[in-house]
């Protein structure tokens, strides 16, 4: 599969995840978000940027449970709940947010 952004084509896997992490930028994220039917707000970007940082540090996309805990630690307990994250990304924070962040699907996410 492929994704077209600003006249350039980017490779994605059969589920729409970006193949080359290095390709990612905010414009690509916006197109991916539209495909996921997500209206990006500052709170969404906060999670996306958190995920990019997490991946950069650990070279994996975190499981939801781990993401929730880590977000709570970094951004405050009111944001470290699965309720909050599912409100932002209704079809699964790991699945949807990782896709928009240009990360691979989290390990163990089926």
């Amino acid at each position, binding site marked *: 599969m492929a994704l077209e952004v600003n006249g350039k084509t980017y490779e994605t896997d059969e589920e729409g995840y970006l193949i080359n992490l290095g390709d990612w930028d905010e414009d690509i994220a916006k197109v991916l978000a539209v495909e996921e039917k997500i209206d990006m707000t500052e709170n969404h970007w906060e999670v996306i940027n958190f995920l990019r940082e997490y991946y950069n540090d*650990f*070279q994996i996309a975190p*499981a939801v449970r781990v993401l929730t805990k880590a977000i709570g630690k970094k951004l405050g307990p009111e944001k470290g709940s699965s309720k909050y994250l599912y409100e932002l990304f209704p079809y699964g924070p790991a699945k949807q947010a990782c896709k928009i962040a240009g990360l691979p699907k989290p390990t163990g996410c089926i």
Partner: protein
Amino acid sequence: MNETTGGVDEGDPGLVKKFMFVNRKAPYGTIYALEGLEVVLISAAFDQDVSMVFMDDGVYQLVKGQHTKAIGMKNFSPTYRALEGYDIEKLYVEQKSMEARGLTEADLLVPVETLSSADMAGLMRSQDVVIDF
């Protein structure tokens, strides 16, 4: 041991078993180390008592400063530092394997407990399931 479920008893969600993952191989050259790590990360979702052992060339998996560009492999060693966030904090290395390779705990990416071969054997005996990579 239940033959059909590989030792995991079904039907009792509250049952916690002691799982040990033994890593014996160098990080690159075979897929064992990476696959083993992925299995451990997935196992974390089941709230079991998980520990990891690094022995023989497996101790190299935890060594700091891995540079993999020249061999065209992804350096997945930073992922060992994510284990703590997955509540996997029981990491053991075998003293003899470390000494034979001139390594000390200061050379490693994550905090570990160093065990003698005898203590390691005892720890293995106390497990419900031991999985070797």
